[in-house]
Structure formats: C-alpha cells, structure tokens
C-alpha cells in the first residue's frame, strides 16, 4: 500500500473502497469486545464461520467482528445488515437457524429478538431498542460498523478526513481554535477545557513537545475507554494526530493499562496500518507535519492514571505524582510541554474538526458540551455502555436507558466518579448530568462509571470499599494520603464490624479535610468524597451502625444474623445441602434451623432458598428469634398450606 500523499489521494482511495461496498450486501456483525468474549462470542464466531461454509454462503456473506456494541447485558449480539435485524444473547446453537432462516429466507426469528419488558413488544432493529433509542451515539455508534482490525472500515465511514482537513486546510492555530470554541472538556475526570490546555502547550517556547493518550482507566466498573480503544482505535489516533499538529508535537504516547490486552493489540495494529497508509510518520498526507506514536503498557497501579504519575511511569520510574504548581502542559514528560488527555476526549476531536464547533455545541448543556459515555453497571437491568448527551437526567439514564433496578428492587443511590466521586440519592435523580452539576451535588463526573445501587447496598460499606481501594492504590509518598486515608479506612472498617464509637464521624471528617487540603495529588485530595457524600445523604445509616450496631441494608456481616422462619420453611433441604459450614440442622420433613455458632454469613442459604418459600431471613440490631423446640419442627403433609 503506497503512502497517501494528499487529500485527493485519500478521497480517491475512499471512493474506491465505497464503490466496492454494496449497500445491499449481506453482513453479519458480531460484537467481539472483551466483555462479549467473556459471554462466549468467540465460539459464536467459530459457529458462524462453520455454518456459512456448510451452507455454501462463505463468499456471499461478510462476517464483521466489531468492537463493543454497548448492550453488554445481552451479549453476544448479532446484527444482520442491510436490514439491521438485531439478535441478542446468541449461542453457537442459534447459528444454524439464523443462517438458514434469516439469511437464506429473510425470516425473522422472534425468539432471538429483544422483548420490551413493559409492552411485551418484540423489537427487530437495534436502533429501535429502547436501550439504544434513548442514547446519542456520536462516538460509539461507529463501533457497529467497524472491524477494528480493518482500516478500510474506518475509511469507509469518513475516517481521517478530519486529519486531512486540519493538516492541509487549516493552520495549527485554527484547528486549536475550533476545539477551544467547541468547549470540549476533558472526559477523564478533571473536565478541564481541552482547548485551553492545548493552548498552554502551543505557546510554550520549547522545541520538543509531547501528546499522551491516558488509557489507564483505573476506576473500577468503568470500561468505556477500553471499548473505544478496542473497537475504534483509529478514531483515537486521528484525534491525537490533530492535537499534536496544533501544539507542534512530533511524538505521542498511548499509555494503556496492561489489563487490556485486546486494546493493546488493536491499537498496535492500528498504528502499523496508519503508518503504512501515511497517516502517521514523516510528512503526513504530503504536509510538513511528522508524527509518530508509541504504546506503553501500565503495570497495575491505579495512581498512574493521574497525569503526573503517568508521566513519571512513562519515564520508567515508580508512578509517584509530582506537585502541580508548574502545570504539565508547560513542564510535563521529561520537563517538556505535554498535553495529556483521556481516550474519549481525543476521540471527540475528529468529530469537531469534521462538523465544526457549532455542531458540537448543539449537544449538551451550557457548560458541558457534547456527549458522554457512561458505564452503567451494578444493580441495573440493562448493564452496558451508554452514550448520552450531557444534560440528560440521571433518572432517564437509569430508568429509560438502563431499564431500572434489577430484580424488582428499589433504587437507593447512584455512584459516579469512581473512587473520587460520590453517591447521589433518589431525591437527586432529576439532576442533569454534567461536570458542574455533579460536582455541586457532592459527586463528580469522573471518567464515566455509573453504578446503580439498591436497597440491599450498605452505604457505609460503600465508603469503606472505596477507602480500601485507595489505601491499596496510594503511592505512599505523602502523609495525608498514606497515613490519613489508611486511618479513615480503619475507622470505617471498625464501624462496619460493630466497633463504631462516638467521635468516629468527627475524626473521619477531620482526616478527610486534611487529605482534601494538602494531599500531593488528586487521589488523596478526592479520597474523602465517597465518605463525605454518603455521610451527607445517608447519615442515618452511619448512626445506625455506630450507636445501634445495626446495618439497615442487612449487609455488614458482623452486624447481621441469618435465621430460617419456621412459618415459611418447607424443609426442602436446599440450604442444608449447600451450606459450606454445615450450619443447618434439619432433615427431610424437619424445619431447618441455622446454628448461629457455625454460621459464617456467606449468604448461600439466602441465595438458594426457593423464592416461593423465601424462608431465610436476615436480621440486624436485634437478637435472632429463638429456634422453635425440636418437637415442633416436624412437618406433616398438608399442615403447611399457604
């Protein structure tokens, strides 16, 4: 493939690619992101290849293994083109009939379609499924059409048009102005205006400058960046190249966490392809601009997602953050001006250059423009990645897109911003999602993790969980974080284990305040947030734990006990057989009783008791009802009518 040396050559190639593509072509797309691999998409892929071969359709049907479609709850997902028929939760066994019925005879297989839970209506097309219909997939939509290993798929969608426009029709200042006007704010958590960050580097009087993609994505429960990098790596490269052009950088780095092998693989392939075609390297598209990109893997440290720690890691050292008094866009990697941005931020750049700042500003709120990809996970029905315009309410995201809380339980809180963020309760569900709105409410946007919690979630434990995470991930350099956050964890652990004391909440607040005020980096500075927000909105739970030695959500092991309600128990022995501690006394017709001495509160009996009996109960803050005498435990047939 000879390098493309001009915009004209690029467009000629694009036309060739498009003319070879028939819009009536039968295509099977199979979601093949990492999450779908976990649900078995690899074996589905193999089944597809086999069946097409068997039915002699190998040459007539294109199989496209794409990146993540977003609806992870229902994966693996197949979409058949040109109709856009969407089949969910596909197993290898479904493939023969899909090929013979739908592909060969255009018959729709209703049992594989999405069924709307409220109307029982069967929905055929992917874009009509409520989960997708209520989203605005400016970035993510492309994943469906792209095999990440194929640069031609990206070109067919208009890929690299923005780069050509920026390099050949705009000067660096103009391109930067466009990004600045669009008011693109960082999608990694800080929400800092990208254009202003870039401007600082652009005007820095240094010859060597760098651009970095932060693909460390350490927030537990967040995997948007992975899916963008896996599914559409060229979009990130294109954005990065444009950014480098505006500031005058000739070298770029992509720092990917090592736990993302598929993303590392796909981005490396994309880089090679881009170099081959001339989108990276010397004199890109015949311009004066030369730019190369290297991939660096992380090695398992959440703190390396912090920009200064990331740069320290790139320099081959332990990821300890540096003071930010001199901003890294002036003195960053090797003390040179460095622009570091998140994967999603970079992916937005080609859209802005192609469509203009005004187009971008149409989406979102006054201060938060564009869309945001959230990973909607936890106790939600439609687990997955959702892209919505800024300004959509939390209620709409959780209930309209997310389908509400799973298992028919009641919504309790939504956690955003990862370990730096907070929990927002029900009365704030009408909050519009945006950087400033979430921060004002005591949480933050963060990288996009959005965890739904229900009545069974203990909010004190949530605070303890995040502090546990941060204590493990703290780099250990500064006192307020290394010592202070650790002490906060100790106190919260004591509270969840029934050893809470008066004065605990005050001490937690004191420690939290010092960490916020003088920690070296944002990890320590935001560490108190989950505690502070749960204290603000769920203070009663803290007080129940501390003074009442009670866990209202019935979660904290040391504060709860399990017992079997003799009225409901049908002696089916399900729990008796599964109990790992042999703690259940009973038999075939004998009402079961839990031996409190042996019970480890593993929750197994609660899980396995058939829902029609629901005999296992949890109790907190009061003594377990005494077991009924042995003589009364025998069940006689017919004596237990419900």
């Amino acid at each position, binding site marked *: 493939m000879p390098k493309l040396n001009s915009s004209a050559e690029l467009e000629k190639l694009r036309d060739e690619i498009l003319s070879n593509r028939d819009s009536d072509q039968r295509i099977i797309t199979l979601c093949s992101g*990492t*999450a779908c*691999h*976990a*649900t078995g998409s690899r074996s589905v892929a193999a089944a597809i290849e086999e069946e097409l071969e068997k039915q002699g359709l190998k040459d007539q049907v294109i199989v496209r293994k794409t990146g993540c479609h977003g609806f*992870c*709850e229902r*994966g693996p997902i197949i979409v058949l083109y040109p109709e856009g028929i969407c089949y969910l939760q596909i197993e290898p066994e479904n493939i023969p009939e899909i090929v013979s019925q739908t592909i060969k005879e255009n018959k729709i297989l209703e049992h594989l379609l999405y069924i709307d839970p409220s109307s029982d209506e069967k929905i055929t097309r992917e874009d009509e499924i409520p989960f997708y219909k209520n989203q605005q997939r400016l970035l993510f939509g492309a994943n469906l059409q792209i095999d990440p290993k194929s640069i031609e798929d990206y070109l067919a969608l208009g890929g690299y048009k923005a780069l050509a426009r920026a390099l050949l029709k705009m000067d660096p200042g103009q391109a930067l102005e466009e990004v600045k006007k669009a008011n693109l704010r960082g999608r990694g958590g800080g929400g800092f205006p990208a254009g202003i960050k870039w401007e600082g580097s652009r005007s820095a009087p240094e010859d060597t400058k760098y651009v970095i993609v932060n693909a460390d994505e*350490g*927030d*537990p*429960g*967040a*995997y948007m960046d*992975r*899916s963008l990098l896996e599914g559409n790596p060229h979009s990130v490269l294109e954005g990065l190249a444009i950014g480098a052009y505006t500031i005058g950088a000739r070298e770029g780095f992509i720092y990917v966490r*090592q*736990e*993302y092998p598929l993303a590392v693989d796909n981005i490396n392939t994309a880089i090679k392809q881009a170099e081959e075609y001339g989108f990276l390297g010397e004199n890109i598209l015949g311009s004066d601009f030369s730019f190369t990109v290297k991939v*660096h*893997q*992380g*090695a*398992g*440290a*959440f703190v390396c997602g912090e920009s200064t720690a990331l740069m320290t*890691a*790139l*320099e*081959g*050292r*332990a*990821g300890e953050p540096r003071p930010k008094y001199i901003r890294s866009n002036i003195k960053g990697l090797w003390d040179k001006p460095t622009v570091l941005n998140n994967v999603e931020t970079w992916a937005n750049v080609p859209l802005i250059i192609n469509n203009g700042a005004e187009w971008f500003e149409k989406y979102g709120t006054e201060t938060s423009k564009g869309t945001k990809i959230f*990973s909607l*996970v*936890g*106790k939600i029905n439609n*687990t*997955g990645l959702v892209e919505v315009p800024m300004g959509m309410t939390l209620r709409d995201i959780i209930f309209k897109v997310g389908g509400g809380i799973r298992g028919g339980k009641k919504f309790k809180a939504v*956690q955003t911003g*990862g370990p730096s963020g907070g929990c927002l309760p029900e009365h704030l569900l009408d909050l519009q999602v945006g950087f400033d709105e979430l921060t004002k409410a005591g949480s933050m946007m963060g990288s996009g*993790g959005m*965890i739904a*919690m229900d009545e069974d*979630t203990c909010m004190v434990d*949530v605070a303890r*969980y*995040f502090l546990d*995470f941060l204590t493990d991930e703290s*780099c250990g350099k500064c006192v307020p974080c290394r010592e202070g956050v650790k002490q906060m964890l100790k106190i919260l652990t004591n509270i969840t284990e029934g050893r809470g004391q008066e004065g605990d909440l005050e001490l937690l607040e004191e420690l939290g305040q010092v960490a916020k005020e003088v920690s070296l980096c944002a990890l320590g500075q935001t560490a108190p947030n989950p505690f502070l927000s749960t204290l603000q909105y769920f203070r009663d739970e803290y007080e129940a734990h501390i003074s009442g030695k009670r866990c209202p959500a019935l979660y904290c092991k040391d504060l709860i006990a399990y017992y079997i309600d003799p009225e409901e128990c049908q002696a089916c022995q399900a729990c008796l057989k*599964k109990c*790992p501690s042999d703690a259940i006394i009973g038999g075939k017709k004998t009402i079961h009783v839990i031996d409190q001495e042996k019970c*480890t509160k*593993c*929750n*197994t009996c609660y*899980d*396995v008791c058939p829902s029609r009996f629901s005999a296992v109960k949890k109790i907190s803050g009061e003594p377990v009802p005494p077991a009924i005498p042995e003589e009364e435990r025998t069940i006689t047939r017919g004596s237990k009518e419900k």
Partner: protein
Amino acid sequence: MDIEKVDQIIDKHNSEASSLIQVLLEIQSENRWLPRQILERISEKLEVPLSRIQHIATFYKAFSLIPKGRHEVHICMGTACHVRGAQNVLTAVEDYTGIKPGETDLDLKFSLETVNCLGCCALGPVMEVDGQIHGKISPAETADALKKYE
C-alpha cells in the same frame, strides 16, 4: 529464563532506562516471575540502580518476585461486582485455596489476586482463572469450578 533471553528483551527496547517497565512486563509475562538474578542483570545493562528496579518491581501489581502458581485466579473487586456480592466470592475462594490475595499456595497450584475491574460488569460477580471468565458465580459454585484445575 536464561541470560541471553533477558539480554534480547532489553536490546529490543534499545536498552533505554525509560523502557524499564516495558522490559519488566515482557519478562514477567514470559517467565511468570522476576528472580533476583534477572533484576541484577537488568540493573547492569540498563545502568539503573538495583534499588530503583526493586522499587518498581514492588510498586506495580503486575510484577511478582515470587514464582506464581500454575493457575492464576483473579477475583474482580470492581464496584459493580462488589455490589453484586464479590466479597463473599473472595471469602469462599480464600477458604478453598487456603491463600489470601497476593499469595501462592505451597504446591504452586493456585495464585490468588484481586483485580479492580475486568470490564465484564454484566457478568458480575466474576472469577477469572487462567484468563477464562466464570461469570455470575456464587460463593457456593467457586469450589466446584476450582476443583477442575490440576
């Protein structure tokens, strides 16, 4: 791993001190742990003090200074898995294997680690063994799943 292989990996990264972490990652991936002699060799070739290499090898979770077991068990402790009961899954695995996260059992059979999000939140809680995902796993099912590994 013999010294030639180590040298090869170092040379591949142009013997640059800033590539230290990438070099260690490659050796860890192939050798499954980082013996002292290898760290000393890297110190020599990259001209980086041994104490700095030790800091890095112990700072980052990806590296192990002790041999790993034949099977690596990872329990996801991400927030989504946590609210779906990951803690109980971890306790059950600790009970079955007899080890805590970061440890390897005496037979070098299992190495246990907690990880902070495998990104398969729809399948939570998740246990990963040798890269294979066991999704929606309950504490009671972990023993059966692990029994299958030699």
